[in-house]
C-alpha cells in the first residue's frame, strides 16, 4: 500500500494499473458493507481510467508518482458527473458539472479515483455518524467512530481500501480522523491549496489536504496537489538541531493519560535523535477555540440557511448548529475576526524560540459510536468539543499541521500527535514527521487492523 513502492512495481511491470484497481475494488466490495466508508463507488470509470493509464505507461507516458494509484475523494469535493452529497439529504442528487481544483490536480498526477467517501453531514461535526448514509465505522474497532468530518477517508485508509484520500479541515476534520484511525493527514497553510470546488463550511477556516497511510505518502500526494512532482530526496531527513516546542499549557492540560504518555514518548525519541526540545508557554488557545467556533457557525449558516425550512432533512445536531449561526449578529462576527487578528499576532511570537510545535491531535482515542461525552479525569466533556479542542486553534491561526500516529491505547486504538509549523512550513513538518515515523516503525500502522 506504500505509494512509492507500488509506483515502482507499476513501472517495472510487476503489476498493472488495472490489476491494482481491480484489487482495490474487490477490497471495497468486501469491506465497505462493514465500514460504510464509501457513499459512491465508481468502479467502471475507475477500471476504464486504469486501462488508459496502463496504455500510457506502455507508450512511455508517466504521469508521476501517483500514476495508477487508487484514491478516493471526500464527498465534499465536486466531481464532474459524479454525485456529491456533502453527506446531506438536501444535496442527495447533486451532480456537479465541474471538478474541484484538487480533483483535477490529482487526476493530472495520474491517480485513479475509485469513488466518493462518507463524512459527517455538511462537514459540520466530528463523529461521521451520518443520519442519511449511516454511521461510518473505525476499522480498528467497528463499534467506534472514525472521527470526522473526513471519517470515510480515515476509515478507507486504515482498512487499506485506497492508498490516498482527500480530506477537508475547518476545525480538525483531517487531523481528527487521522488520530482516531491511525493514519496521516496534512492540513496545509490556509490558502496554500485551492478550495475551489470544495463545498464551503467556513470560508476563512476551510482547508483541503491529503490523507494517507504514511508521512511519505502524504508528502507525495501533497506535491501532486500543488501541481509538482516529488523530487528524490538528496539525503535522508534529520531532526538534528530542530527546535521543537512542547506546550506546557492547554495542549496537555486535559488529556487521557495514555495519550499523554504516547506523545511524551515520541518527543523523547526525537530528543534522542538530536532535536532540541523546549517546554514553551503559549497564549490563550481557548480564546482561539471560542473565536473559531463563532466564525465557523456564522460562515456555515450563510452557506446552508437557504435550506432552513427543511428541518426534517437535517440531522438534529447539524440543524442546531445552523440555527445557532443564524442567531449571531454580524457585528459579533466582525469582532471575532478582529480578535482573531490580535490572537494570531500574539501566537506568532512563538516562532522566535522554536521551529515547530508538537501536541496531541486529540485528547482521547476514538470514542464509541453514539457516545455523547468523554470522561477525562474528573471532567466530562462533549465528544465534539473534546475532539476539536486541540485541532481548531490551528485553523484559526491558519498554520500548517501534520497529524500522524504515535502509539496505541491498551484497548488497541491508535493515538495521534500533530506537528505544527509557521505558515509555509509544510516541508519541515513532512521531513520531521518522516523521521519520527521511521523511529517509531510500528508495522501495525502500515499493515492496518487485521
Amino acid at each position: 500500500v506504500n505509494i512509492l513502492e507500488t509506483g515502482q512495481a507499476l513501472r517495472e511491470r510487476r503489476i498493472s494499473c488495472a490489476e491494482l484497481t481491480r484489487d482495490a475494488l474487490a477490497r471495497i466490495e468486501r469491506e465497505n458493507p462493514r465500514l460504510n466508508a464509501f457513499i459512491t463507488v465508481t468502479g467502471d470509470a475507475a477500471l476504464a481510467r486504469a486501462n488508459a493509464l496502463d496504455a500510457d505507461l506502455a507508450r512511455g507516458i508517466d504521469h508521476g508518482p501517483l500514476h495508477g494509484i487508487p484514491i478516493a475523494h471526500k464527498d465534499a469535493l465536486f466531481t464532474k458527473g459524479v454525485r456529491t452529497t456533502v453527506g446531506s439529504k438536501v444535496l442527495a442528487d447533486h451532480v456537479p458539472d465541474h471538478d474541484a481544483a484538487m480533483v483535477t490536480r490529482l487526476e493530472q498526477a495520474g491517480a485513479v479515483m475509485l469513488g466518493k467517501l462518507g463524512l459527517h453531514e455538511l462537514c459540520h461535526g466530528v463523529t461521521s455518524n451520518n443520519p442519511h448514509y449511516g454511521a461510518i465505522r473505525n476499522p480498528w474497532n467497528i463499534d467506534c467512530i472514525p472521527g470526522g468530518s473526513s471519517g470515510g477517508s480515515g476509515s478507507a485508509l486504515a482498512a487499506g481500501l485506497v492508498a490516498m484520500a482527500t480530506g477537508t479541515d475547518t476545525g480538525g476534520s483531517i487531523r481528527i480522523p487521522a488520530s482516531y484511525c491511525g493514519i496521516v493527514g496534512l492540513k496545509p497553510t490556509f490558502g496554500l491549496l485551492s478550495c475551489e470546488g470544495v463545498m464551503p463550511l467556513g470560508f476563512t477556516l476551510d482547508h483541503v489536504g491529503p490523507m494517507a497511510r504514511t508521512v511519505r505518502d502524504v508528502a507525495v500526494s501533497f506535491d501532486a496537489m500543488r501541481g509538482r512532482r516529488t523530487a528524490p530526496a538528496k539525503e535522508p531527513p534529520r531532526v538534528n538541531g530542530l527546535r521543537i516546542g512542547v506546550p506546557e499549557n492547554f495542549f496537555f492540560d486535559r488529556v487521557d493519560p495514555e495519550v499523554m504518555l504516547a506523545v511524551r514518548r515520541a518527543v523523547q525519541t526525537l530528543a534522542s535523535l538530536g532535536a532540541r526540545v523546549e517546554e514553551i508557554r503559549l497564549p490563550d488557545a481557548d480564546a482561539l477555540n471560542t473565536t473559531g467556533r463563532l466564525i465557523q457557525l456564522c460562515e456555515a449558516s450563510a452557506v446552508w440557511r437557504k435550506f432552513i425550512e427543511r428541518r426534517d432533512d437535517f440531522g438534529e445536531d447539524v440543524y442546531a448548529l445552523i440555527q445557532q449561526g443564524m442567531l449571531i449578529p454580524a457585528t459579533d462576527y466582525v469582532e471575532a475576526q478582529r480578535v482573531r487578528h490580535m490572537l494570531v499576532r500574539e501566537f506568532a511570537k512563538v516562532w522566535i524560540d522554536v521551529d515547530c510545535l508538537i501536541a496531541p491531535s486529540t485528547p482521547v482515542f476514538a470514542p464509541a459510536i453514539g457516545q455523547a461525552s468523554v470522561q477525562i479525569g474528573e471532567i466530562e466533556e462533549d465528544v465534539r468539543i473534546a475532539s476539536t479542542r486541540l485541532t481548531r486553534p490551528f485553523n484559526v491561526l491558519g498554520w500548517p499541521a501534520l497529524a500522524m500516529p504515535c502509539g496505541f491505547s491498551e484497548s488497541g486504538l491508535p493515538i495521534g500527535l500533530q506537528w505544527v509549523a509557521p505558515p509555509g512550513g509544510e516541508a519541515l513538518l513532512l521531513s520531521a514527521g518522516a523521521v519520527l515515523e521511521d523511529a517509531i516503525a510500528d508495522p501495525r500502522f502500515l499493515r492496518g487492523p487485521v
Partner: protein
Amino acid sequence: MDWEALAGVLHVPLDREDAARVIAPLENMYRKLEPLRATVALDTPMWTPPEAGE
C-alpha cells in the same frame, strides 16, 4: 441576549425543544467571548490570511 425574541425577528425556526441544543451552547460561547472583546483596540483590523498561498 433574548435569543428567542431574536429568532422571531430573524425568522429562525426555534421551538421550545430547541432551547437546550441551540441556546445553551450560544450562551456558553458568549460568556467566553465577552472578556476577549474588551481587549480589541480601536484600530484592530479584521484577520487576513497568512502569506503562503499559491
